[in-house]
């Protein structure tokens, strides 16, 4: 392909031209992206925050707290969990713990586990996962109310051995044709409950 600017070749070493041209293109697109980023940054931050609040509000009873749990964050080091704290008059109401079950049928399942200060479960929601549509995705509230079966449960109800699917000697149902997904979810809820019990003091500081 011929360029239409032969005059610049005299002052420019031949090998520099393609490189320079590429550099100019790179610059143009860096500016384009930076500009778009600036334009959208604020809105994206708002959207992220809104989404978090929506997720938390699925579990919290309106009026039972008077702070902003979405910004009242405790991030325990190296556990991969994030704890959002709901309080009323500065006393703990519930901890909403974002956690990940790593042993789902296809990868990780992100869960939100709400635990009342009394140690009972406020509710559980599956936030993100790639479980098989039609089988494993019954953990979604939109498909099945299985996940509501954890409401008001705790480490005393059932006993720790009971925190498993029925097939493994526990008290919780599995889905027809999908045991791995419920097993992963139940296991992670149990771990989260234990974590909450062992760290409750620190969590609400």
């Amino acid at each position, binding site marked *: 392909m011929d360029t239409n600017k032969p005059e610049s070749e005299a002052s420019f070493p031949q090998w520099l031209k393609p490189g320079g*041209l590429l550099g100019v*293109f790179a610059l143009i697109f860096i500016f384009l992206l930076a500009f778009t980023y600036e334009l959208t940054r604020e809105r994206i931050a708002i*959207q992220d925050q809104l989404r978090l609040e929506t997720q938390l509000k699925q579990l919290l009873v309106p009026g039972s707290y008077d702070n902003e749990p979405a910004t009242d964050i405790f991030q325990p080091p190296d556990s991969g969990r994030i704890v959002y704290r709901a309080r009323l008059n500065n006393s703990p109401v519930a901890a909403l713990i974002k956690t990940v079950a790593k042993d789902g049928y296809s990868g990780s399942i992100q869960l939100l586990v709400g635990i009342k200060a009394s140690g009972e479960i406020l509710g559980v929601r599956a936030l993100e996962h790639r479980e098989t549509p*039609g*089988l494993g995705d019954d953990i979604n509230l939109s498909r099945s109310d299985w996940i509501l079966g954890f409401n008001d449960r705790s480490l005393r109800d059932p006993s720790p051995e009971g925190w498993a699917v029925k097939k493994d000697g526990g008290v919780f149902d599995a889905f027809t044709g999908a045991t791995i997904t419920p097993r992963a979810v139940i296991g992670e809820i149990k771990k989260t409950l234990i974590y909450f019990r062992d760290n409750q003091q620190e969590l609400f500081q």
Partner: protein
Amino acid sequence: MSTPSANEIIYKGLWKNNPGLVQLLGLCPLLAVSNTFINALGMGLATMLVLTSSNFVVAIARPLLREEIRIAIFVLVIAGFVGVVELVMRAHFYELYLILGIFIPLIVTNCIIIGRAEAFASRQPLWAATLDGFSMGVGFALILLLLGSMREIIGSATLFADAHLLFGEWAKDMTIHFGEDARGLLLFALPPGAFIGLGLLVAIKNVIDEKMSQPKGIVVKLGKPATADISA
């Protein structure tokens, strides 16, 4: 390479040289995101936008392009536009972004885009390149939509589920359910369904092409008269 007419460009993009059915390029996003109508629509629009913009810019830059660096520039242009689309989508169609998020960067690897830049936009005038990008984009989006509808109806027994992600709250009631407790044929919601569906669409197109290319009334090789079915 002479410049084809506008009609020819549109015909090629939508039918004769359709990226999804004939060139079979960009199969990764085509197969991955075609599990529901709305996913397909989002991905189709995003791809169309990137393809049109990249063809446009490549055609503008045509006098500057040099053999050694053209591919690098194509990639730069495409990646840049994909980045812009991703940011805009994240800001304005957040819910859809959450679903398609991981697939949007895949548009960069969609061979159809770099393919059109190299084979068409870098050799043609601006208007033709832009029209080609648009036509190819529409052609790709239509196949995505067809495949998406087909897989959603068969695989999940719904249509237009999650339309509110794209159109806002009022579209929540748009979802059509086929039967109260129908759960669909799971196979079609899973990756094999994508391959089977695309295979069927390609076959259908080939049958239509064959019928159209046969002159009326002449008996074909198989001994069947090609008569009334030319309606397609």
